[in-house]
């Protein structure tokens, strides 16, 4: 492994996203192990607010990639800008989130830089000069360990919320503003509009208790039963993506990286297998109780308590307990 380590930072509404702190913690550890430097980049049109917090986060270098054309997320422009920064810095390792940005820009970046990418990783460590990553396969029922041996840079996208976030001692990083050359006239894609999901007044992010329905409940006719449990507990109904896709519940109830991220005191996952897109958006809940027939369901890896059984038997018993 040679070269520096670069974290692709993410931010929303002027706040650095948690995935970035998680990547920086891991990046710092690896950089110290390898005796190299750690840099973080952030893309946008107005980044001054972020630079200070990034500079005191344990990195050696902050790279604000600032340009008027980078105000809104634009996949083509972001890819070009990040690729240009990578060409200047020539990092050996690029860390990013397995987020919408990492999924859309990451593979394009890997091809453009001629590097080797491993996506959707949950663990990452150095084994001598090599990087070894652990990632889910087969719907999350199994995991594989892979060793990166292809061309550098090595690009890894990491699932949000799985790496520990360490507080790093107060070193102050250098700030360097890389020049990027962007040309609007050569763009092959144009942003026409931004949309926000219409929630119809429902805000599952505020609920203290969520009773969440997955495909495993069997059908929309089981929703009233879950609603009864939610009502008995004074909570709200939530659901996984397939349940919203199939129209069993409106999308306002959907928990997942595409919809809402939730952190209730109690999250009761009913018939939810635990796809990473769902788990990422609820794993920080205070207490997670999962009910699923399949003992291998990935949801049992994030749940604090698990009931291996039939939702149709367990939920009525829970309703009785809650009312009792």
């Amino acid at each position, binding site marked *: 492994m040679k070269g520096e380590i670069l974290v692709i930072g993410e931010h*929303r509404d002027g706040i650095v996203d948690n995935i970035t702190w998680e990547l920086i913690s891991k990046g710092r550890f690896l950089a110290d192990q390898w005796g190299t430097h750690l840099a973080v980049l952030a893309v946008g049109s107005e980044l001054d607010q972020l630079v200070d917090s990034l500079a005191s986060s344990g990195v050696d270098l902050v790279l604000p990639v600032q340009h008027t054309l980078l105000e809104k997320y634009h*996949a*083509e422009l972001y890819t070009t800008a990040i690729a240009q920064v990578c060409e200047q810095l020539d990092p050996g390792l690029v860390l990013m989130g397995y987020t*919408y940005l990492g*999924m*859309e820009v990451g*593979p*394009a970046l*890997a*091809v453009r830089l001629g590097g*080797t*990418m491993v996506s959707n990783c949950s663990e990452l460590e150095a084994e001598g000069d090599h990087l070894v990553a652990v990632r889910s*396969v*087969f719907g999350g*029922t*199994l*995991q*594989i*360990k*892979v*060793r*990166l*041996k*292809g*061309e550098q840079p090595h690009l890894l996208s990491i699932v949000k919320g799985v790496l520990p976030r360490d507080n790093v001692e107060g070193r102050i990083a250098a700030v360097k503003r890389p020049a990027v050359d962007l040309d609007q006239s050569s763009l*092959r*894609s*144009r942003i*026409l*509009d*931004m*949309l926000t*999901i219409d929630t119809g007044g429902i805000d599952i992010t505020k609920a203290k*208790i969520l009773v969440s329905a997955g495909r495993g409940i069997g059908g929309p006719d089981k929703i009233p039963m879950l609603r009864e449990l939610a009502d008995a507990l004074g909570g709200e109904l939530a659901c996984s993506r397939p349940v919203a*896709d199939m*129209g069993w519940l409106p999308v306002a109830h959907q928990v997942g*990286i*595409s919809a*809402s*991220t939730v952190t209730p*005191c*109690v999250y009761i996952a009913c018939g939810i297998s635990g796809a990473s897109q769902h788990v990422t958006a609820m794993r920080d809940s205070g*207490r*997670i*109780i*999962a009910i699923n027939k399949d003992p291998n369901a990935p949801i*049992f890896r994030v749940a*604090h*308590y*698990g*009931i*291996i*059984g*039939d939702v149709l038997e*367990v939920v*009525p*018993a*829970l309703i*009785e*307990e809650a009312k009792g």
Partner: protein
Amino acid sequence: MNILICTKAVPGFVSHPSVPESHDRVDYEAGSIVINESDDYALEAGIKLAKKSGGKAVVLTCGSLSAQKILQAGLGKDADAALRVDANLFEPAATARALAAAIRKQDYDLVITGVESSDVMAAQVGISIAEMLGLPFAYAVTEIELGERNRTIQITKELGFGKKQVEELDLPAVVCFQTGTEPPSFVPVRKMMLAQRKPIKSFTLSELDTRGQPHGIEVVDIFSPKETGMAEIIEGDPKTQASVAMQKIREVL
């Protein structure tokens, strides 16, 4: 507008997983072979759009002979032709290279893939194909509409956190389709039987000049993630389980 739809045959259920000595893939026994879920949505959207624009829809996959089943399902859904790259590749970059090479030989305006396969779960192939072909791309697309004179498309894509972006892409382009609210249709048995008699063209990696490309990753091990952390299981009959669970709920309220 001619549309190529990339699909993948994935196992419905996996048993006896192992890593072969070559360390370049995972071996397993598949309980069944199905079309990957988001690819099924991509297929449905692609065929519909091709018909609407008066063009052709071609369904393709990279896989062994057993993967032909999903191509036949595509033909049963009225795709005009089917193509298979005859290779069993594990690494997303290798799959993307093979598919991109096959796509280069076609006459197309738009390539549609699913967002992520349920077996390898890398979400890399679609965007990699776009970049290898030097085309504009969009990920997590939920809607596609034809633009003026079939030279552009207008897509809606997810950005996360309940946000979506509407974007216009010049053609040719590559879009990765997300599962959505319109469920894919079933192929009637009779149509499926007719589809099974249609020819399916296949390419080898040598024919595509992509054989012998170096592997970027080495599979070291495959294991059940149970070993890395597991919920405390509440045992007993449903009534006992509910009573214990309620205790655990009340503890934190």
